[in-house]
């Protein structure tokens, strides 16, 4: 329970920054997956 706006914002933004970091990592993985050339025998 967040009793002040400052506490709420700190929590929400903190979670968002962690998520944004994970998304940046996911972007790199996604880009490699998207562009990797598939060689077929």
């Amino acid at each position, binding site marked *: 329970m967040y009793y002040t706006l400052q506490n709420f914002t700190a*929590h*929400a*933004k903190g979670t*968002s920054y962690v998520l*944004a970091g994970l*998304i940046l990592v996911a972007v790199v993985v*996604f880009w490699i*997956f*998207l*562009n990797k050339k598939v060689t077929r025998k």
Partner: protein
Amino acid sequence: MIAPAENRGGLFTPFNIITGLILVFGGAIVVLRFAYGLGYATNLTHTTTWGLWTGFKLVFVALAASGYALTTAVYIFGMHEYHPLVRPAVLSGFMGYTLFVLILIFDLGRAWRIYYPFLVRPGVTSALFEIALCVALYYTTQFVELTPVGFEWLGWKRWRKVVVGVTVGLTVFGLFLSMLHQSTLGALFLSVPGKLHPLWYSPYIPLHFFISSAVGGISMVILVGLICKRVWGHKMEISREKLDQLTIGLGKGGAIALAIYFAVKVVDISLANKWHYLATGWGAWYLVEVLGFVLLPCLLFAYGHREKLPRLIRFTALLTVLGVILNRLNVSIVAYNWKFAIEQRYFPYWMEYVVVIFLITLGVVVFRWVAQRMPLLYDHPSYKGSH
């Protein structure tokens, strides 16, 4: 000169009969709406003033983004290999905006006052005024972009040369206008935080609408290309293999756009700390929309591009279009007035569905009329390779 329409079995073909019946019946409903008022043809009330027609206004505009999406790719980003799809994409976009204007007139009534926002009482502080102005300008821009098709059909070389010369300028203007009105359609809902469910409401809803319009536009290009090849394959100059290559390329664009959209949606949930809503019934429906119609198509597009699977990409494009339709209807109808008891909720009247089907049929009939007569899917013999 003017090419004759193909003789595909005379006037009374099954397609013509079915579409004719729909147009006659739907047209009658429209006449009744204007004769007896909105209450006769809809279930709208003083508490629910926006209904199915408003929802489909948002749908038509979102899916009409095929025009700006492909012209931007070809004329601004230099992806000229997609040029064969530009004219069908712009025409489908133009038809989307035509249906938007028609359904707006049916909803508002008083069509003779259509010029009021521009000449009589411009509400410059209103989001709706900005939408009206941008849509009017963009509709005009798309019409001008399509005039070379008509000029080639009529043999008006000088007029064609003038318009082709300003294509890049029209594309830039069109992109600028599209970004404005696509996002502002979302911004309309910024004024109703209490009415729209928190999972769909966001201060970033204009951004959501703009990104999903790009997604819908790319998917519509894929589907329009498929339908044109299936129905008028003999007219299309590009081969099936070339169309498959272009589809695979568009799949990559779709994957990237959907990935951005999904990331924006997730960060939005986090910034407003809306996680607890996901554990509710509304949350389950939200997850169906975001996981089933955003994340899943994103992964399918990526896989289809990587493994060079055009059929998978076409199926995914259909899934994406359904997702955009679902999102727009969720925002405007389903999740709107979400706190109301079930007996107070709005459910569309059957006539509203008929009018929507009537308009979609009208769009298909006009598209077909143009594709069968004008150089939409091929280079006119007099101008081969010149545009």
